[in-house]
């Protein structure tokens, strides 16, 4: 799906929001530039920034973004318009050839927004016609000063190099003199590269600008940009895929050819969907097709001679010496050298030095590929992209053990507060509440009536009553509210208990309870009961007071007293149920509610609270029935809908739960619990993006509640948006740092991003809060393992196992780490534990086979691979590894048969696995040492001829290509003779040399073997390869020297338990 709003060539056409959304890498720079422009506008300091970046590096994007941010600043701070004025000289400002002309362009740019500048521009035109150039230039300066006035002029000057070229040195001097003399301008300029007029010490503008080189996008930044564009275009599945190791590897493949030019990724984004990115080749070829007119236009900008040179470099693909270029282009060496210098300055070519010779090649691989495709050589490009597609996951495999498993405890339920008091209070409380509501809602009639009731119940003095009445009648409700509160409180506290009558004591107790004076209220109820212990209402209200004081046992006893006096007292049964519930005595609570309901069947509160107790007991079906009764009595009871949703969710009926939450939201849209719980159910259905939206609504209502942030983090994890998930967990942690689950899931996200050290730190925080969570220890072990810290990983697994001895995954992972340390016996014992816990755990059985293979116990190894296959007959990796053992044992026929089966299984799979190249590489790693043994080659050659046929039939030659490159370090190792290396190359050339897909890897192998023989000639040899091929070779050979990829690490890698998330 194309992103229509993305403009790869004219970013200024995009909206400010779109520009902001897709900005990557340069957030800090944009902020700094903005700040310095504002400083220039508001202080005498003047900043001159020069953004330097080749075409497509995002200069105009950044400039447009800052322009829009400034416009927003104008809206935010209108006085800024008296301090700053902007003239944007865009890319298309061709042909400025004098100071006069420059001023005219500036005035024209200003005139777009300013009437005065329009008039000044008119005047300038008149003067230009009438005056000499000298006089007109002087006038131009005057008019420009007039246009700027007391403000600072921000000059946005795109392609400053072209502008300065047109201005010439005299024009530049006039410009600089103006800038220096007036100190009224700040500049934000762009250029594809540094140029003499600003770089040379002999030029006026030397050292004048702050040069800011725009960095190319790194792979993670390219991924971020593509992800943002995907999200902007509603392609959530693509955004998620980009976060996976495979998605990242795909972008890395593109980066290999396209480099870090942001425009390329903006363009590439137009052609990718989740599937297109996975397949890669088609999307890449489409992008090349779209870029071709751009590169053709760039070719047209060149002179004939320069174009000829560029075409030659396209044909040769690798760097070429000047004299060779001269000869092939029929020009003399001097002319060729000077044209190459110019092309280099223009950014078309770059040079590599070898001794005294300069070798030139095209700077942008992508340009060469585009032009190659036009020359009907697209097939080669497709093969190379396919190679890269397989190469990157393979080259990263050593560091990317996917041992991770997810946690299942993502869900947290929000339980609602329960009602404590029946609202059917006796006496005046109703009047008082009605009055308070009437005042709040400004209902004059109701307020007057209730005020009178209160007065007659002697709750107000004459004076207070008259004063309140006047306030109500003059619509001064808020003053009345305040006075009511004060007068009631004063009156309540001023009356001595002894002075009160029996009934007034009770009433005062009720009122104090309402106002929060619980202990005082309790004293009064006790006093009342001391006078009349048969007063059941006083026992009830005493119970309520005790409940409020969290003295639930005593409260229950008080209700019991009330019930003993009046067994049909509904309120007593109801409130008793609440206290029992808070004591965790749910069964008794339910019985109490039942009695209340028996007396008053339409009490929706009783039905609702009964439902809550049933829910707490896990009797969800019954709870739902109870909520249904509450809802049938009071259909707008949103709490009941929410709790009904919770029960449905707990039954796994997520869809119905969501409908229930939706009903609650229909009644009250700002119910945090409804949105949050709805998100939880959506998450349960795997509808993570909708869940994120639902949590977003909850967060809008309660930004400081950590649960929605936490849950949002979990759903973002589900979407593979780990960076955002981490940010969400961070918010949750900032609110509640003591929730270990936040730390745990944050650790998982960090792990999934390959940030293992940080993941470990996060698990450590979780463990410090809750040391008994075995999953934290297991996950910590997995991260440590991926860092190669196997010993520490084992210790961590041991802790997990000590907490949960039947955790088969921990035992399995422990086995893998032990295997990596060469502690095979212990590894096997660990796998045995895993298998004894879960006899169907074929991964552990497979891993055991692998350990036995490394231990040299081949028959045992085959035995366990067979056992794994018995459990799951389509385990192609077990089949393949079994073939490797058979090959090592010299059972070539059996090995071929195993691999035949391996590739049959693979061909039947709907999705082609990504680890085929890895398996082939494992085999080659075993093959090479045997190939080097004396007299082994004829037999192995015969065997490989048959294997090559299997590979061809299975169509895995691209995977074979990458495996051959990946095993080059082994061929270059000192234990392999030059003769064997030559034979190795000859073997593959004979077997598959005619296959186009093998052409490039065999060429690289040829160069690598020549380098093995003549290490001092590396540079010369490398210069025979194209830039992208050199990078592959460098990458392959670096694998041999990085600490984590020594031969033992390569050998010692068992199959791992995959994520169960």
């Amino acid at each position, binding site marked *: 799906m194309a992103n229509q709003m993305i403009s790869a060539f004219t970013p200024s056409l995009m909206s400010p929001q779109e520009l902001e959304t897709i900005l990557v890498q340069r957030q800090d720079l944009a902020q700094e530039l903005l700040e310095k422009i504002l400083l220039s506008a508001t202080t005498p300091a003047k900043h001159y920034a020069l953004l330097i970046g080749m075409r497509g590096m995002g200069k105009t994007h950044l400039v447009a973004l800052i322009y829009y941010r400034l416009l927003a600043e104008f809206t935010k701070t209108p006085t800024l318009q008296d301090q700053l004025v902007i003239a944007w000289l865009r890319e298309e400002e061709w042909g400025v050839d004098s100071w006069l002309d420059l001023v005219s362009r500036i005035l024209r740019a200003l005139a777009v927004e300013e009437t005065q500048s329009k008039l000044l521009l008119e005047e300038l035109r008149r003067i230009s016609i009438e*005056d000499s150039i000298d006089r007109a230039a002087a006038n131009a300066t005057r008019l420009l000063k007039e246009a700027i006035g007391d403000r600072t002029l921000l000059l946005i000057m795109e392609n400053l190099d072209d502008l300065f070229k047109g201005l010439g040195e005299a024009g530049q001097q006039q410009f*600089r003199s103006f800038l220096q003399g007036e100190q009224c301008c700040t500049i934000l300029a762009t250029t594809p590269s540094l140029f003499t007029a600003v770089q040379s010490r002999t030029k006026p503008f*030397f050292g004048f600008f702050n040069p800011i080189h725009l960095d190319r996008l790194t792979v993670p930044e390219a991924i971020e940009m593509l992800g943002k564009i995907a999200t902007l275009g509603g392609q959530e599945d693509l955004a998620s895929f980009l976060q996976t190791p495979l998605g990242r590897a795909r972008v890395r493949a593109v980066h290999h050819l396209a480099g870090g030019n942001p425009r390329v990724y903006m363009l590439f984004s137009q052609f990718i969907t989740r599937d297109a990115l996975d397949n890669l080749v088609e999307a890449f070829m489409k992008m090349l097709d779209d870029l071709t007119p751009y590169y053709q236009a760039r070719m047209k900008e060149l002179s004939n001679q320069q174009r000829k040179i560029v075409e030659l470099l396209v044909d040769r693909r690798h760097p070429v010496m000047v004299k060779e270029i001269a000869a092939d282009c029929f020009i003399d060496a001097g002319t060729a050298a000077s044209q190459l210098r110019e092309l280099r300055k223009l950014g078309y070519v770059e040079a590599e030095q070898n001794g005294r010779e300069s070798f030139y090649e095209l700077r942008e691989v992508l340009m060469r590929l585009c032009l190659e495709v036009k020359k009907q050589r697209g097939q080669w490009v497709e093969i190379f992209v396919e190679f890269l597609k397989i190469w990157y996951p393979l080259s990263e495999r050593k560091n990317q053990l996917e041992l991770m498993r997810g946690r299942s405890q993502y869900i947290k339920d929000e339980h609602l507060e329960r009602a404590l008091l029946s609202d059917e209070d006796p006496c005046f409380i109703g009047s008082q509440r009605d009055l308070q509501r009437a005042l709040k809602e400004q209902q004059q009639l109701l307020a007057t009536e209730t005020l009178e009731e209160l007065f007659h119940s002697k709750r107000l003095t004459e004076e207070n009553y008259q004063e309140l009445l006047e306030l109500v009648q003059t619509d001064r409700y808020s003053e009345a509210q305040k006075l009511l509160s004060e007068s009631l409180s004063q009156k309540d506290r001023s009356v001595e208990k002894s002075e009160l009558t029996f009934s007034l004591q009770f009433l005062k107790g009720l009122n104090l309870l309402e106002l929060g004076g619980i202990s005082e209220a309790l004293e009064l109820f006790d006093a009342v009961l001391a006078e009349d212990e048969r007063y059941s209402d006083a026992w009830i209200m005493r119970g309520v007071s005790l409940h409020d004081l969290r003295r639930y046992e005593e409260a229950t006893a008080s209700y019991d007293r009330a019930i003993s006096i009046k067994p049909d007292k509904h309120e007593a049964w109801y409130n008793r149920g609440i206290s029992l519930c808070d004591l965790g005595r749910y069964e008794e609570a339910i019985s109490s509610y039942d009695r209340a309901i028996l007396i008053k069947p339409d009490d929706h509160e009783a039905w609702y609270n009964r439902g809550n107790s049933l829910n707490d007991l896990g009797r969800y079906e019954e709870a739902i029935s109870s909520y249904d009764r509450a809802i049938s009595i009071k259909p707008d009871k949103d709490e009941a809908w929410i709790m009904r949703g919770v029960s449905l969710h707990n039954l796994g009926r997520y869809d119905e739960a969501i409908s229930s939450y939706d009903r609650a939201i229909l009644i009250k849209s700002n119910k945090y619990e409804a949105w949050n719980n709805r998100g939880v159910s959506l998450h349960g259905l795997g509808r993570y993006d909708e869940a994120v939206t639902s949590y977003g609504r909850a967060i809008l209502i309660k930004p400081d509640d950590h649960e929605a942030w936490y849950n949002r983090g979990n759903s973002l994890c589900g979407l593979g948006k780990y960076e955002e998930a981490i940010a969400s967990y961070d918010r949750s942690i900032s609110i509640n740092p003591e929730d270990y689950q936040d730390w745990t899931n944050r650790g998982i996200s960090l792990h999934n991003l390959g940030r293992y050290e940080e993941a470990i730190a996060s698990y450590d925080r979780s463990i410090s809060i809750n040391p008994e969570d075995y999953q934290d220890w297991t996950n910590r072990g997995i991260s440590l393992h991926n860092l190669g810290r196997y010993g520490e990983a084992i210790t961590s697994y041991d802790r997990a196992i000590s907490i949960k001895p039947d955790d088969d995954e921990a035992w399995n992972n422990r086995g893998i780490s032990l295997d990596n340390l060469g502690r095979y016996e212990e590894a096997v014992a660990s796998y045995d534990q895993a298998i004894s816990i879960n006899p169907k755990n074929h991964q552990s059985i497979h891993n055991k086979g692998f350990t036995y293979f490394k231990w040299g116990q081949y028959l045992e190894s085959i035995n366990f691979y067979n056992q794994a296959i018995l459990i799951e007959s389509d385990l192609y990796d077990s089949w393949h590894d079994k073939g490797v053992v058979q090959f090592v044992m010299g059972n070539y026929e059996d090995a071929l048969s195993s691999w035949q089966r391996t590739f049959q299984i693979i061909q039947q799979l709907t999705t082609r696995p990504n680890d085929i190249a890895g398996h082939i590489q494992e085999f080659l790693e075993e093959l090479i040492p045997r190939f080097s043994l004396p007299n082994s080659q004829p037999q192995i050659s015969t065997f490989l001829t048959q294997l090559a046929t299997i590979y061809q039939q299975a169509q895995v030659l691209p995977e074979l290509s990458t495996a051959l490159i990946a095993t080059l370090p082994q061929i270059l190792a000192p234990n392999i003779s030059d003769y064997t290396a030559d034979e190795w190359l000859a073997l593959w050339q004979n077997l598959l040399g005619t296959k186009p897909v093998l052409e490039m890897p065999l060429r690289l192998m040829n160069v690598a073997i020549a380098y093995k023989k003549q290490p001092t000639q590396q540079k010369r040899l490398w210069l025979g390869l194209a830039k992208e091929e050199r990078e592959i070779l460098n990458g392959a050979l670096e694998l041999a020297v990085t600490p984590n990829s020594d031969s033992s690490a390569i050998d010692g890698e068992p199959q791992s338990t995959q994520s169960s998330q």
Partner: protein
Amino acid sequence: MRTNPGGGLAPEEVVGRDALIAELWDKLERHGVMMTAERRMGKTSVLRKMLAQQPPGVTAFYWDLENIRSPETLVREIFNKVSEDLGNSQKWQGKVQQLLKNWGLGGEKIAGVSLPKPDLTWQQHLQGMVQDLSAQVADRERWLFLFDELPLAIDNIRQDQGASSAMEVLDTLRMIRQDYPQIRMVYTGSIGLHHVVAELRKQGYRNAPTNDLPPVEVEPLAEYDAWKLAQDLLMGEKVATADLSAVSQSIASAVDGNAFYIHHCVARLKGMAQSIDVPQVEAMLKAAVRQYDVWDLGYFEKRIGSYYGENAKLALLALDELAPESALTFGDWWNRVSIQIPDLDKEAFRSTLNLLEQDHYICRNDAGAYRFRFSLVQRYWHQQRGN
């Protein structure tokens, strides 16, 4: 403080120049000044700070004259600026109308396109103006003309109008200083006026147009000021450092206390790492010199060919030998170079060293040994030409 490499600094951002400015004011009490320094040493910043801190009795005007290509445009610019500044000045509010009238400007807004009285020469215009200005102030009061990029203006005039016009401008300005003691001038610019005068000498110029303007060299910032500036900038840009003092010190010393480069260095260090330490400063400098050469340090290498003619090879070799060393005595240096150039004349070597010293490549330390004058140039030399 925020970094602003190459930009216009606010007066309060121009640090470590108080002593120099005090010295300049002191000298200007008695005579004009020729302010000299390598490019980007901060001459213009000093002038701007002086302009913002004029002592009582001084009225200063600032011109950047690099756009001037004729005596008439020079005088017109002087008229424009004086008229404009006086027009905006509270102090001269009462008198400005009369002055403008005297100068033929009739009290109107300055048109700025031609000299006001067509019947007078540019010299007469200029003299008339300074005469009027002088008459407005007491004996101890001064009009201060700060002429930035004057050498460029003179050279432009020489190229466009001929050498005699350029000579006349220099002589007229000198004559004004002689005849009107209330007028003080500061000459400065990115190229040395002596180069321009040397060109005029070739055309027969015999006068000494600046012998009344003693030179004042703008030196790099003192060690403490440079360290403080680096520290203020690191803090202003919120650059986290492992050791603020040590990082500031390493920046300041690597660039010999040149404020322009200190601004550049801090701007480059920003965002380079989460926390900057001294090795990262070193890495940044190495990259700045090698990858971009944004400071055009290669210029010091390139100009050897034109400056030293037949001795260019000797000069290059001598500097190559000095580049890896902190300092070399004459004897040691001679031994190293003479072994590589058979029949090298010792006096020719000595005179080449003298020229290198004059051209700011080298200087001598307290013990009399030679060293590179600028660490950055030495760094360039060692990095780019070493081995």
